[in-house]
């Protein structure tokens, strides 16, 4: 090594880190603070609307993993009645192809991201579990109608944006406690 620049390079780098010492950290204090996720978030669950579902199994066919298990019988009015609609979210890769392919918008991605479980079995979601509830809400992925109803995503690009001459050094966060957003 020849210090051809007398250590100027080292000093320059040290100046950069020193400058960062006075910048505001970008860390988010999860779980007290949460970033608002995208409106199109593909959270790790699915939401199934039984009333819209015709039991056509397009979703099951489009799934690359063959994760969706659907059992139907022909009920009244020559319509399929869904007996079993199970999704193994432990094997699901949340590609969203089932949601995209559903012709009746009966399936949607969820917006939740805290779905860790202690047992693999618990990741297999049954027909009842998949339905819309307080903790299971659909995201706007491939569902343009839902999309505008969701809150605006917090972006890191806006982190030190200046607004009205004032520098925002905080991310737009949702401070709500509890699961989901």
């Amino acid at each position: 090594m020849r210090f051809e620049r007398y250590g100027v390079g080292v000093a320059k780098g040290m100046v950069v880190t020193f400058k960062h010492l006075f910048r505001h950290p970008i860390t988010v204090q999860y779980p007290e603070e949460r970033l608002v996720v995208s409106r199109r978030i593909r959270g790790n669950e699915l939401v199934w609307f039984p009333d819209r579902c015709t039991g056509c199994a397009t979703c099951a066919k489009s799934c690359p993993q063959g994760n969706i298990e659907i059992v139907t019988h022909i009920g009244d009015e020559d319509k399929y009645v869904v007996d079993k609609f199970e999704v193994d979210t432990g094997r699901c890769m949340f590609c969203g192809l089932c949601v995209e392919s559903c012709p009746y918008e009966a399936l949607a991605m969820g917006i939740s991201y805290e779905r860790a479980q202690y047992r693999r079995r618990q990741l297999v979601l049954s027909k009842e579990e998949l339905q819309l509830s307080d903790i299971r809400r659909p995201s706007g992925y491939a569902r343009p109608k839902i999309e505008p109803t969701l809150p605006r995503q917090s972006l890191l690009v806006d982190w030190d944006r200046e607004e009205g001459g004032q520098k925002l050094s905080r991310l737009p966060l949702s401070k709500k406690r509890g699961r989901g957003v």
Partner: protein
Amino acid sequence: MTLLEQFQLWLATIWPEWAAYITPAIVGIVVVLAFVLLTVIVFIWYERRLLGRFQIRLGPNRLGPEGIFQPIATALKVLLKEDIVPAKGDKLVHWLAPVVVFVPILLIFAVVPFDKGAIFSDLNVGIVYVVAISSVSAVGIYMAGWASNNKYALIAALRTIAQMVSYELPVVLSIIGVVLMVGSLSMSQIVESQNIPFIILQPLGFVIFFLGTVAEMNRCPFDLLEADSEIVAGYHIEYSGMKFAMFYLGEYGHALAYSCIIATLFLGGWQGPLLPPIIWFLIKIVAVFSVIVWMRSTLPRLRVDQLMAFAWKCLLPMAVINLFIVAAEALWLPEALPWIMVVVNFAFASILTLLWSRLFALGGGRVEV
């Protein structure tokens, strides 16, 4: 006359001799240990927070106000972990190694003057004692690397030997520069004779000493013993639990000890205006430690041959030249005019830096195989 000796004299008037001899020793040990352990814990927290801020993170901030109790939680977590000894390792040596690393570091604090008279033992060979004792921990690191029966650890052990031995030379030579000015090896006298801190009088000596000690305590950019991207964690790769905690404490204790030594040798120790001396001393060690953390947050690591070349080709010759200059000045410059020395030494420091950056290369590194 240190405070402990005064205490001992006073005790001797009321207690039997042996008790008067032992009690102050115990009191001193307890005070120093308490200081070291407390400060180390604070330093661990401080480094993590500071490093976080350098990296635009927050650092630990959950436990206690500003996360001050995080090191304690970490320590608890580490203590509760399973103690693993490699099956083919040398169990006794594996157990001894952390002790051998940690104890010498504690011993260094025996001669650190925290305040006027506040020194555990004002040895008249204080600074040589520091150098001698700190070289012992190299043996400990070597033992750890050996006993782990792991190739990464062994590489680290070999690096230890090379690095510690190489960097000891420039460190000692730059210490001699200080000793020449003071005329004594005693740490308290070194502090007392610094009306102008030696960092101003001997800038080059300070830089050499600082870099040398950073290498001795294996901090970035000389942290080749632990180089996590190359040899994973080096010598403590096979350590866990309490024994790992000893190494961890030892590492920070080392940093603390050398911060103290740097503050004592070059920054004027506890001397300073207005504030009480102990506060000044703390400010100085924190400042030194902050610079070390700052370097760690910025600089990449040297390669092993460059590290050795840096010691032998850059630091050692510069230290020798610095020693000559200081010796000449100590001989010939009038005592009354220290500022001439400041000017001359700064000039020499910049000239030498320029020369060395122009003339010395640390070598290519490729070996024909």
